């Protein structure tokens, strides 16, 4: 016993090192379990307020670009207004139509922290649980995708951007609806990878890739990017291409969080399907 204490005292520095190192590794690898823990709530509150100040300053530098995107969106919305249509029958624009039910609601949020130079990038937004944001909601900018919410506190949330090794987006070719997977392999933040393109699909440079709507996160038809370069594989079953993202991740300032009003219904359906399978 005496020797044990002697040993511990002599080597305490190694034990302290091991304890701290294990602690940080456990935190790192289990971080997903901590997503809504008290730790996140407290730390997001503190860091959020610091980052808020910094983004208030940097916001001014991107005003021009934000204006352009707003103007584009405005134009698109104007062309969807009822005045823009030729009215053959006035009743066709009746708002409380049972045929049209609101599926998505958008919450505008400001980006207060963003990175593109790491292998796994995250974005912090200034909206959180109090504004109705929940985990796994999609985040878009105009009609371009940005990422999905992975962690929330009362007033802030973290978004896993497309530029992350855990981010896999289900997309499709706009021209023929062929499904593909989009990932990011690090390096240049403008270029991603398109995987599992079936052999029979003819690829052209400049082909548009949009979201497939197969996942619960993004609706169909949001812009992901255009084909930048492709290789025809000789021995494998799938071709490979690189994609140029249409979202400029390095200059995000205002984004929208997608709230799926029918999500509960979809999840319940999934659950009932799974339980009936057993």
């Amino acid at each position, binding site marked *: 016993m005496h020797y044990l204490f002697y040993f511990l005292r002599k080597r305490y520095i190694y034990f302290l090192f091991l304890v701290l190192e294990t*602690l940080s*590794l456990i935190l790192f690898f289990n971080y997903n379990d901590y997503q809504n823990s008290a730790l996140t709530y407290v730390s997001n509150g503190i860091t959020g307020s610091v980052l808020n100040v910094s983004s208030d300053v940097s916001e001014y530098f991107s005003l021009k670009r934000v204006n352009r995107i707003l103007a584009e969106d405005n134009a698109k919305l104007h062309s969807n207004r009822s005045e823009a249509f030729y009215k053959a029958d006035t009743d066709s624009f009746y708002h409380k139509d049972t045929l049209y039910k609101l599926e998505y609601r958008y919450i505008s949020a400001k980006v207060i922290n963003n990175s593109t130079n*790491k292998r796994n990038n995250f974005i912090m937004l200034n909206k959180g649980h109090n504004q109705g944001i929940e985990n796994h909601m999609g985040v878009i900018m105009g009609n371009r995708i940005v990422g999905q919410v992975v*962690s929330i506190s009362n007033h802030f949330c973290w978004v896993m951007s497309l530029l992350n090794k855990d981010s896999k987006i289900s997309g499709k070719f706009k021209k023929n609806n062929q499904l593909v997977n989009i990932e990011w392999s690090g390096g240049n933040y403008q270029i991603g990878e398109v995987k599992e393109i079936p052999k029979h699909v003819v690829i052209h440079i400049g082909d548009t890739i949009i979201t497939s709507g197969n996942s619960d996160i993004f609706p169909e038809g949001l812009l992901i990017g255009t084909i930048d370069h492709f290789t025809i594989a000789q021995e494998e079953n799938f071709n490979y291409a690189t994609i140029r993202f249409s979202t400029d991740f*390095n200059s995000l300032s205002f984004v929208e969080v997608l709230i799926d009003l029918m999500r509960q219904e979809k999840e319940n359906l999934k659950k009932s399907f799974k339980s009936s399978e057993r």
Partner: protein
Amino acid sequence: MTIIFLKNTGRFIFLILFQVLILNNIQLNGYISPYFYIYFILLLPFETPRWLLLLSAFLLGISLDVFTNTIGLNASACVLMAFVRPFVISSISTGTEFMIGHSPSLKNQGLKWFAYYSVILVLVHHFSLFYLEIFRFKEFFQTLIRVLLSSLFTLLLVFIAEYLFYPTKE
């Protein structure tokens, strides 16, 4: 003693804010992301007890982590770096006694000593940080390039800071 403590605390806060507000926003072709905040660990006084070295490194890492949403990643790299530091110092000891209350610096230890010291520690930190962040061997060489380029950039900042704040007297 109190002055040394206050000086280091101030440096801690300044370096974290500098890293979060300025360096994390730097975008250089996706391969270079400097981590200058570890300058704090490089500059801790020679006679800092090893337990304090480890604890302050852990605190430094975890405070940066809460800003970048990577809890534990920077902390583990910093703890490793702080653990290695005494070994590096003893391996290149010049035989002369270090003065009480002094930090390692270009001015007192000379260019050769300081370069050896900082290159090893920065590489240890960056290697563990980048490979832990990826945690797969598929992108081994790509990550190696990132480690080397980022280390180069961090070292550049360290040397600029050394020449700025502790100018050598001719």
